[in-house]
C-alpha cells in the first residue's frame, strides 16, 4: 500500500462503441487523485462524462485506456471487495421490501448474520433519522426520505468510499439544502471518502473540499478548484464571501469550458 490515494486515475480514457461509426469519446486523458476522507465533487455540463467517470470508478463499465485504481486495486477487485457504496439519481429502493429490509439488502448479499443485519440497519436508520420508519414501505415515504434511506443503504456495510451520482437532483430546493447539511454531518461522522457528481454549482461549493470542473466533447478535466471554507459548514457558510467567490470562480470556469 505505497499509494495512499483512494482513487488514482492516470490518463484514463473511455470511448463508447469503439471502432464503429457511432464511437463517442466520453472521457479523455483523465488524471485524478482522491485522498482518504476527502469530499470531492465532479461538476460540468451534461455530456462532460462526470457520470461516466463515476461509473468507471464503480466498475459498472470498463475503461478503454489508461489506468484506474480504487484503494490501490483494479476497480473490479474493489467492487468484489465491496470497497464502495453507491447512491444513484433515483433512490432505487425495492418496493416489495420494507425500509429496514432495503437497508439490509447489501448485508444480505454479503452474507451477514441476521442479528448483525438488524443491528446495523437500525443504526443507519438512526443516523439518517428515519428510525421510526423501518417497518414502512418505500411508497409511504417522501422523495427526500427515500434518498436518505438510499444513503443509509450505501453506508450500512461501512465502505471506505461513497459514490454519489446526482443524488439530490430530483429534490426541491429546500429539501436539497437540508439534505446537503445532513450529508455533511454523515460524512464527518463516518469519515468516508465521498465522490459526488452534481450539476449544481452551489451544492458543489457548499459540500466539497475540492471541485473537479469538467468540460464536454471530449469529456476531460478543465480545472480542479480548492474550496477554502472550513468544516463544519452550516447555513451561514452560504453567506460567507469566500463562498460567493468560489461559486463565481466555478461558474466562470464552466462558462469557459463551454465556449471551447
Amino acid at each position: 500500500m505505497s499509494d495512499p490515494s483512494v482513487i488514482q486515475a492516470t490518463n484514463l480514457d473511455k470511448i463508447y462503441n469503439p471502432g464503429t461509426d457511432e464511437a463517442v469519446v466520453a472521457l479523455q486523458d483523465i488524471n485524478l487523485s482522491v485522498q482518504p476522507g476527502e469530499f470531492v465533487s465532479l461538476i460540468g455540463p451534461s455530456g462532460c462524462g462526470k457520470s461516466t467517470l463515476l461509473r468507471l470508478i464503480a466498475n459498472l463499465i470498463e475503461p478503454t485506456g489508461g489506468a484506474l485504481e480504487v484503494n490501490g486495486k483494479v476497480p473490479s477487485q474493489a467492487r468484489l471487495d465491496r470497497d464502495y457504496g453507491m447512491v444513484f439519481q433515483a433512490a432505487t429502493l425495492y418496493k416489495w421490501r420494507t425500509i429496514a429490509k432495503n437497508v439490509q439488502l447489501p448485508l444480505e448479499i454479503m452474507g451477514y448474520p441476521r442479528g448483525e443485519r438488524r443491528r446495523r440497519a437500525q443504526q443507519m436508520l438512526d443516523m439518517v433519522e428515519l428510525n421510526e420508519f423501518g417497518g414502512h414501505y418505500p411508497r409511504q415515504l417522501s422523495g427526500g426520505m427515500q434518498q436518505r434511506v438510499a444513503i443509509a443503504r450505501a453506508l450500512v456495510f461501512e465502505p471506505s468510499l461513497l459514490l454519489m451520482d446526482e443524488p439530490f437532483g430530483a429534490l426541491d430546493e429546500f429539501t436539497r439544502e437540508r439534505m446537503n447539511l445532513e450529508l455533511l454531518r454523515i460524512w464527518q461522522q463516518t469519515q468516508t471518502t465521498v465522490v459526488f457528481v452534481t450539476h449544481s454549482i452551489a451544492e458543489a461549493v457548499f459540500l466539497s473540499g475540492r471541485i473537479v470542473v469538467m468540460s464536454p466533447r471530449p469529456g476531460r478535466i478543465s480545472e480542479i478548484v480548492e474550496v477554502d471554507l472550513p468544516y463544519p459548514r452550516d447555513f451561514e457558510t452560504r453567506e460567507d464571501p469566500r463562498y460567493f467567490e468560489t461559486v463565481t470562480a466555478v461558474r466562470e470556469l464552466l462558462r469557459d469550458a463551454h465556449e471551447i
Partner: protein
Amino acid sequence: MVDLRQPNAPTTEGVSGVGWQPKQIVLLLTVIAAISLTLAQFVIISRMTITSPIFLDSTVGELAVWMADQATEEAPESFLGQIAAQRLPTVGEDNIEQVLLTDMSRLLTLWTGGVAALVLLGALGLALSVRGHRWALLAALVGTNTLLYVIPPTPNTSLVTLILLGVVALGVLLLLAAQSVEKITGFVVMLALFTVAWESSKAFANLVNYNITLPAAAWEYSAYDDLDAALAGLQSGEITALLADRNALDEIMPPHPTDPDTDAATLAYPDLRHLTEVNRTRQQLGLEIEPELARRVSVATTAATAPTITDINQLQNMPLGTVAGSFVEGDFLQQDHQWVLMNFRISNDLNLPHLQSIAEALLQPARRNGPVLLLRILWGAALYTMTEALLGFVFGATLGFILGSVFAHIPMLQRSLMPYVIASQTIPIIALAPMIVIWLRDTHPILPVAVISSYLTFFPVTINTLRGLQSPDRLSLDLVHSYAASPWQTMWKLRFPAALPYIFTALKVSATASVVGAIIGELPSGVRNGLGRAILNFSSDYSLISTPKLWGAIFIAAITGIVFYVAVLLVESVVLRQQLDA
C-alpha cells in the same frame, strides 16, 4: 392551521332541506316500487294452494313430488330422499306427497314473507339512516332473485313480471342508496340484473316476431286424376315437368344423373328421368321462399330436358303437372308461398331455457327416475375436472416459469426457441389433444388431460415470467451489481420479486385456461367422470329435456373456473399485499 368548519357556517344539510333533489325523488319512488312489488309477490304466493298449477310447476313443487317418489322407494340414495323417507312412517304412503307439497308451499311463503320483511326493514333503515340497511336490502335482492329460479314463467300470470320488476327496483335502490358501491353489492346487483336480462330477453323474443315475409306468387300447374295420366301428359309434352312422390317414381323410371345399377330397359318409362339431385331451395334475389320442396317429392321430366334442370327455381315458368289431391299439391303447390325477408329467432326454449328450467334440471335426477340429482353428479364432475385442471395448472405454471427464467438468462435461447413456443399456441388444442391421449395411453387416465391442460397454461406464464424477470430497471440492476451480487442472488433478491406481479397476472389467466384445457382434454381421452364428458353427453341430445341440463353443466363449468381464479387471487393478495395496498 385555521379551522374552516366554523360553528355558524351554513351546512350542506340546510341547502338540501329547502327542496327535494331529483336523486331523492327517484330514491323515494324506487323505495315505494320495491315495497309494493315485494308485497304483491308475497300476497300472490301466500294465496297459492298446493293444487295451483303455478306451484305444482315450480321447482319446489316438482322437488316435493320427486322427494315423495324417493321416499316410497327402498333405501333412497339421495339426501333429500332420505329426509322424505324419515317422514314416511308418521304420515303414511298415501299422504306423503300432500304433506311434502304443503311443507314446500309453506317454505315458499315463508321465503317471500322474509324477503318482504327485509325490504321493509331495509327501507326503514334507509329512512332513519341506520347502518346495515344495505345488508338487509342486499339479502332481499338475493331472496327475490332466487324466486326467478323457482317460479315457472307460465302464461297468464303476472307473478314472474312482478318478480322481474321487483329485482330491478331493489337493484336500482341498492345502487342509489349505497354511499359507495362495494364489490359485493356491485356483484350481487349485476348478477340479479343479469338474470332479469336473461328472462326478459326470452319474454321479448316471444313477443316480437322475427319472421318478416312478403307473399310470393304460387306456381301454375295442371292436376291429373292419377299418376299414369300425369306421366302420359309428360310424355306427350303437355307438361315439361311432373312433381310427384319420390317412391312412386323410383320404381318406374331411371334416375338422373344415371345410376349404373339401374337397367333402363326393364323399367316402364325408360325415356323419362327422375331428377334425384335437383337443388330444392327456392330463392328470389338471394332470399328464400317458403315452403321449400319436401324431401319425399321428386321431379320427373323427359330424358332430353333432364340435364337442363338443376334447380327447382327453373320450374317456375314451365308447364307443370301433379296428381290431384297428392301430398305435393296439398303441401307445396297449394300452400301460400312466402318470400322470407328476415327470419331469426334469438331465444326459444331449445337454445335458451328459462332459468327456472335450468335450476329445476339441476335439482332433478340426472336420469329419469334415477336416484342421484344432476347437481350432485355435476358437482362430482366439477371436482374431478378441478383435480385435472389443478394438475395441469401446476405442470404448466412450473414449465412456464422454468422456460421464462431460462429465456431471461440466456438471450440466445430466447431468440431461437421463442418462435416455437409461440407456434405451439397456434396449433389448435382440439387437434393435438387426441395425439397426447395416444402418447400417454398407458399411463394414468388423468395424465393426458393434465398435459393438455398444461399446454394452455404454460404459455402466459412463460411470457410474463420472461417479461417480469426483465422488468427491473438499469439502476436497480446496477445497485446489486455494485454489491458484487452473484447471478443467483440477483435472481432471488431482485428479478424474482420484481417479476411476481407479472407472474400472478399470468397465473390468473392460466387458472381459467387450465379449466378450459381440462374440459377439452376430457373429450378425446375417454375420461368419464369430468365436466367435459357431461357437456358432451348433454349436447349430443339437443332436446327440451337435455338443453337445461347442458346449461346447468355450462354454469357449473363457469363456476369451476371462477373458483380457480379466485383461489389464485387470494394467494396473490397474500403474497403481494404490500404492493397491492394503495
